């Protein structure tokens, strides 16, 4: 919490007051931190477990203790401190792993980019100025391999919650701009502070082939980008040797240069971090294999949507594939009259068959989002791969254990095994089933309940759009909040509520006839909790209840702006 030099500021005092009112109902001590109160022991009983590392177990008990999986099996003793959850009819899978993403980096979708990862990645950035023009490899254009995603994380990135709600507990998040954008970090998708998220800060090195320059800076072509990458790795090799020899005989040689780009790559190489190379079409894939050989790296390619055509070649080189799950589509604003080449149609038809082909050829692969908007689209697209012949077990593995192996964290996550991090997703059926709902997600043993957005039962009567002033009473007296809402013609409500703890976006909301309900997640101290506002609207006034964990009160509200406008 913020604390001004001359004592507590007014909002802080208010916060403490409301914390008391909302969180602990006056029972708890003011000094007690919320996280200490957070349950850390769970037991899922009578549940089907799909560990991925072994065969499924029916009617099992899974015990979570302090962030890790403490016990698993039938007839496992439940520790007395555990919060017992009856898992009848539920299935627990390892938390899903997005193998290449920008989750947590607060990156807005690049509007100018030609597509998701593998297409537009690496492009963009600030406009080129004369000082930025690279005149050759020696200028190290668009190269920042020392950056680690872990140092750039924003714990409040909306994507974290979006993906977590869809069952994704883990991601490889990497910086996005440049030829060597930086190193990827394995992150868990929950935490208050950026550092809480980080499982492994330096887990991968990514290269892209999108030069910054056009005709105005090196590299301005695909062949230039390839030559650049090759040169940088040659330089790194020479730098390693030069450092070693110079350290042994400093008086026998001219002092070698220091180059931050090379040192970062050498360190990554020494740590065995995979180098991720973009390759989507079959010629690009084969070219990627050649490039990997040139830079003496184990081939790990991303994109790989035409892997169906070259699966054998990938297997032959023992390559690893990160498959972009954003299957190719006809561009939405494409000329409807334009006739597409047959090859484009074929590629579009066959792309979802790539994972099946890779599995059959024995190529290790994982899925990544490729700029898909959310986890539902991702699972839907993985389902398409299953429909095209990928065994569901292989699909699940490609979303859990395999990416963990690729990034060297399979010893701590990626499957349900005793001792591993308790990253779990609990569903009411088969993970890839059309009607399956995700009920719970555990990230580092922290429980997140997933609520489906409800739909209005009747068409809305009235309009919630506008700025509302809300008043409600607590044990501590009268409180104020404002709600800035927007309602769609169908009745769904979105917007924000500003309250003493900050501003929270609506998680869900709707107006059915004149009854409304909307939910926010507010953080009265320690950890976020959900509060639901429900009631009725009558012209420019609303009234109803606020309900939260251990908290309930009544509220009233008016729409002063609208009243004013109406008064004129």
């Amino acid at each position, binding site marked *: 919490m913020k604390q001004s030099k001359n004592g507590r500021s007014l909002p802080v005092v208010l916060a403490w007051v409301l914390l008391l009112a909302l969180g602990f109902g006056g029972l708890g001590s003011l000094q007690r931190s919320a996280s200490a109160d957070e349950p850390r022991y769970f037991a899922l009983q009578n549940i089907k477990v799909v560990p991925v590392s072994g065969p499924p177990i029916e009617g099992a008990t899974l015990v979570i203790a302090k962030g890790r999986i403490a016990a698993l099996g039938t007839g496992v003793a439940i520790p007395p401190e555990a919060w017992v959850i009856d898992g009848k009819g539920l299935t627990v899978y390892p938390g899903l792993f997005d193998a290449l993403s920008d989750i947590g980096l607060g990156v807005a*979708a690049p509007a100018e980019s030609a*597509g*998701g990862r593998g297409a537009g990645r690496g492009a963009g950035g600030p406009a080129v100025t004369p000082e930025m023009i690279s005149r050759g490899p020696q200028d190290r254009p668009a190269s920042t391999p020392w950056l680690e995603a872990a140092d750039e994380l924003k714990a409040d990135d909306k994507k974290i919650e*979006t993906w977590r709600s869809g069952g994704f507990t883990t991601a490889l998040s990497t910086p996005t701009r440049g030829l060597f954008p930086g190193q990827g970090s394995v992150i868990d998708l929950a935490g208050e502070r950026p550092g809480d998220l980080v499982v492994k800060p330096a887990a991968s090195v990514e290269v892209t082939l999108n030069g910054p320059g056009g005709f105005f800076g090196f590299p301005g*072509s695909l062949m*230039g980008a390839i030559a650049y990458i090759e040169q940088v790795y*040659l330089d790194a090799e020479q730098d390693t040797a030069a450092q070693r020899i110079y350290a042994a005989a400093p008086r026998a040689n001219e002092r070698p240069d220091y180059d931050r780009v090379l040192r970062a790559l050498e360190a990554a190489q020494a740590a065995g971090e995979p180098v991720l190379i973009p390759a989507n079409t079959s010629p690009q894939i084969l070219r990627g294999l050649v490039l990997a050989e040139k830079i003496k790296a184990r081939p790990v390619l991303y994109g790989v949507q035409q892997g169906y055509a070259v699966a054998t070649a990938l297997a032959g080189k023992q390559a690893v594939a990160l498959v972009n799950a954003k299957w190719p589509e006809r561009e939405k604003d494409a000329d409807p009259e334009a006739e597409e080449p047959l090859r484009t149609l074929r590629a579009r038809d066959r792309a979802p068959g790539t994972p099946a082909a890779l599995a059959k050829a024995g190529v290790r692969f994982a899925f990544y989002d490729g700029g898909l908007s959310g986890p539902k*689209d991702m699972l839907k697209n993985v389902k398409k791969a299953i429909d095209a012949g990928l065994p569901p077990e292989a699909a699940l593995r490609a979303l859990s254990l395999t990416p963990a192996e690729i990034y060297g964290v399979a010893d701590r996550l990626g499957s349900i095994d005793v001792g591993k991090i308790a990253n779990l997703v609990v569903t009411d059926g088969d993970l890839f089933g059309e009607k399956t709902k995700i009920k719970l997600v555990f990230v580092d043993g922290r429980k997140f309940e997933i609520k489906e957005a409800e739909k209005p039962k009747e068409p809305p009567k009235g309009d919630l759009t506008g700025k509302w002033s809300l008043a409600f009473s607590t044990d501590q007296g009268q409180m104020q909040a404002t709600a800035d809402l927007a309602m769609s013609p169908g009745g769904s409500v979105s917007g924000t509520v500003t309250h003493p703890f900050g501003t929270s976006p609506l998680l869900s909301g709707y107006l059915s006839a004149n009854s409304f309900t909307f939910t926010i997640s507010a953080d009265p101290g320690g950890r976020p909790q959900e509060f639901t506002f429900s009631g009725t609207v009558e012209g420019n006034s609303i009234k109803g209840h606020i309900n939260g964990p251990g908290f309930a009160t009544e509220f009233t509200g008016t729409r002063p702006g609208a009243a004013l406008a109406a008064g004129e």
Partner: protein
Amino acid sequence: MKNPSVLGTILLAGLFAGLLAPALAAQDSGVTLIENATILTVTKGTIENGSILIRNGKIAQVGKNIKAPEGATVIDAKGMYVTAGIIDCHSHIAVEGNVNEGSVAVSSMVGVGDVINPDDIDIYRDLAGGVTTANVLHGSANPIGGLNQVIKLRWGKDAEELKFEGAPPGIKFALGENPKRNNFNPPPGIPRRYPESRMGVMDVIRQAFVDAREYKKSWDEYNKRVAAGDKAAIPPRRDLKLEPLVEVLEGKRYVHSHCYRADEILQLMRLAEEFGFRIRTLQHVLEGYRVADEIAAHGAGGSTFSDWWAYKMEAYEAIPYNAAMMTRRGVIVSVNSDSAEEARHLNQEAAKTMKYGGMTEDEALRMVTINPAIQLGIDKRVGSIEPGKDADLVIYNHHPLSVYAVAQKVFIDGHIYFDREKDLAMREAQAAERKALLEKAKKAAEAEKKAGEKPGADRKPDSEKKPDGAAPPQGKDEKPKEPPKPPQQVAVAGFLD
């Protein structure tokens, strides 16, 4: 896949395409006999009613009355003409991405061989015009450009398999307006690249070779220290830009230089002689007729257009007699395309030298077969119909120097890579496949839409709404998207040549 008929069509069409498309290898017993043909051997005269026996990709026998061995595929070429596959000494097909690394004056660190795109449809189109080998060059934006790649047009094979194995490596140079960039202005605020004059172009080339010599020296010194047992020697940095230039100095890499004017041609040859190497080919060389004796004395080949001129200032003094005049002065001359379209009728481009300059039929044919093979150092393998050479052959329905000539079958390494009859048949199958794929996609989209409308179907929270403008990833044959270019770049005349 709920519609079996659609699925069936796709499978059938795919099967059909698979049979026809790449290697067309159905009749590969390894032995083929082409008989009853008029054979234009290029180097050994014309054989009427002749036969060519192909074994294991090579020409085994050429002559009259060759009996078909058992199991051989026999092609009756009655009334047809067979000649060696056409070699295009200046091409830019099958390149993925920008063909110029134009950001720097010396771009010898880049290589076309790194970015061969075997799916480029121009390969198939040029193949259909009888081209079997192409010298794929970097563009002409730089005094010293990137490395070239000689390929065989083995349509259906992957990039590495297209490469002409054993072809001597080369590099592109360029002189005149393109490298000094007269016809090209950077956007405001971006400085012009050096050089901006013909003097500057020569300076860049000379400086690069001075650097290359120094580079070579640093390695020689290092190797000497190591050989003397000095364990404290730090290896020099390997420089991908200078390594190919060292190879040029050592005569291990061919220089193919874009040029137009007589003065710059002389300048370049003299510069090369100063550094002790030879220019292998002068490309375009439109004023070559003015300095043909000097070119012949230097030992450079000339690879020119049949009759393009005046498309920019430095091309005003071109004449269509150029190829013939250089030939008469002892220069090995080829006629090239520099264009995926032009390449499809290089045989007729060569024929123009008969009208302009009075070349004989054989001399004209040589311009697109054995002469470019000599220029590229691959004449032991291709360029004429002789026993022992690669079976790269074209069967034409008319004399290849006639305007009526249409390639019927094109062989590379003894395999048929283009067959006009089969191509025509394939079009129908492909139309059916296209229709089936579109229908399948339409049905899938409808099914998805229907599922989305179902009551109780998952609704995306607003936070998941996707920002528009996220285009699908690149399809197989879409050209890679270059970063948006400023408008000044759009109308750059002759930049590829």
